[in-house]
């Protein structure tokens, strides 16, 4: 658990306890090498933002952490347990890691409440009443109580994404992965989703976000990682990355963002 072999490119001295640690993670799709040796460590309660242009590997990285994509080489540890070894029970790993997708991926044939209670009931084996209680509490907390019996196709994008976040939280994950969760939303719906993330960060949730919302990354991140060509090219505090990037590629990327009026 404690970072005895903490020689990872985290830029921090002696990590207390890494919630997530990636070592030399490689992933290819056919001939396309998307991740080319990712090293990354995320401490508990840390909020790490992954930035970089499309195709830099942000989403693939998150999908690999959740074992939705098998990696080709390297190792991934979650809370001290290696999850990429042979004979790992992928279902029990995923139980501890929540992920929220860009496209919400709610189950369209279930009500909001059923969407949220499905995993607690089927995976954790909670009795229906207990699962309902736990999930209704979450829905109330995130302003979705009056939507519990609605079907997803009746909700706005922002509401759907908040339900997706609640669905992930209902499993009480130790690590939450957020894959460009505001990219599919209308601009006026982005803030309601970001508010939820803000609240989670304040509550100490360990999170890794792939995001294009630079302003939000600057505000919320404990650390920002710039991915380029399947590598973590540069990382540091938001102030350092956004104000004083060291790498030429980072500067180019941020200049394009500024030019587009996104920062």
């Amino acid at each position, binding site marked *: 658990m404690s970072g005895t072999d903490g020689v990872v490119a985290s830029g921090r001295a002696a990590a207390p306890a890494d919630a997530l640690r990636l070592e030399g993670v490689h992933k290819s799709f056919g001939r396309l090498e998307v991740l080319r040796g990712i090293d990354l460590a995320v401490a508990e309660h840390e909020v790490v933002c992954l930035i970089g242009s499309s195709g830099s590997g942000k989403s693939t990285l998150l999908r690999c952490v959740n074992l939705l994509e098998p990696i080709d080489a390297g190792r991934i540890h979650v809370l001290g347990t290696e999850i990429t070894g042979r004979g790992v029970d992928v*279902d029990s790993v995923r139980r501890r890691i*929540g992920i929220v997708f860009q496209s919400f991926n709610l189950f369209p*044939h279930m009500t909001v409440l059923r969407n949220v209670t499905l995993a607690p009931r089927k*995976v954790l084996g909670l009795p229906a009443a207990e699962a309902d209680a736990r999930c209704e509490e979450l829905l109330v907390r995130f302003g979705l109580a009056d939507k519990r019996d609605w079907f997803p196709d009746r909700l706005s994008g922002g509401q759907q994404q908040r339900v997706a976040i609640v669905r992930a939280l209902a499993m009480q994950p130790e690590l939450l992965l957020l894959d460009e969760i505001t990219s599919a939303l209308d601009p006026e719906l982005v803030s309601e989703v970001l508010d939820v993330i803000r609240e989670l960060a304040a509550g100490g949730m360990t999170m890794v976000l792939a995001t294009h919302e630079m302003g939000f990354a600057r505000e919320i991140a404990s650390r920002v990682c710039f991915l380029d060509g399947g590598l973590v090219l540069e990382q540091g505090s938001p102030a350092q990355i956004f104000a004083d990037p060291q790498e030429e590629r980072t500067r180019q990327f941020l200049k394009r963002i500024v030019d587009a009026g996104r920062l």
Partner: protein
Amino acid sequence: MIVVVIVNSPGWPAVRRAFFDGHEFTSSLPEISRAFLTNVEIFCIAEGFILVVGLAIAVMRSLPGPVFFPIRALAILYADIFRGIPTILVIYILGFGAPALQLSWLPTSTVVWGIVGLVLIYSAYVSEVYRAGIDSVHPSQDAAARSLGLSRSQSMRHVVLPQAVRRVVPPLLNDFIGLQKDTALIALLGTVEAFRQSQIDVAATFNFTPYLATALLFVAITIPLARFTDWLLNRDRRRRQSAGALG
């Protein structure tokens, strides 16, 4: 237009006497209706099995990875073979072949073997319908379910299949209308169902009206079946759209 041509054709008076005889119709209808109950029975029993066997074949075929290759291959082989052989041949082979084996533990009833034949054939078709439905559910749905910790089979059962089945209700019903018609093929094994009964009536009177009566009975079943599906689909759509207003 077609009606005008038929009614003005030179043979029409004779055809009308042979096929549209009111007296023959009323006198043959009760007996054919009784025999038609056999068709309905065959249909209901066969349908129950087909829904289950077809689904099992479809799920077998959707198992991923090299480990399950033999199971996938078996499912594909099954669907290919039983979609390839004409229904009538399968029913002949089973209906006359199986009892001829003279194995005491095998049923000898021709109805049973007729039903087995229909189940084998239609399960192959229905498995393809289910498979199309399973394939139509976007992989992100399975990813979302698996990411919550649901196992492969839990994801299939709670997330993928419910959506898949809903989407394939109309084509499933289409196959069942086909099945309802094909119950008449069991007549070939000697079972007295509606078509066989009408043949008997025709042979006795040399009037073909009983065939028409039988045709009407079949249509009388398939039309409500079609409307029922429409109603089911509409209800589902309404329920999903109005739930918000009620909620």
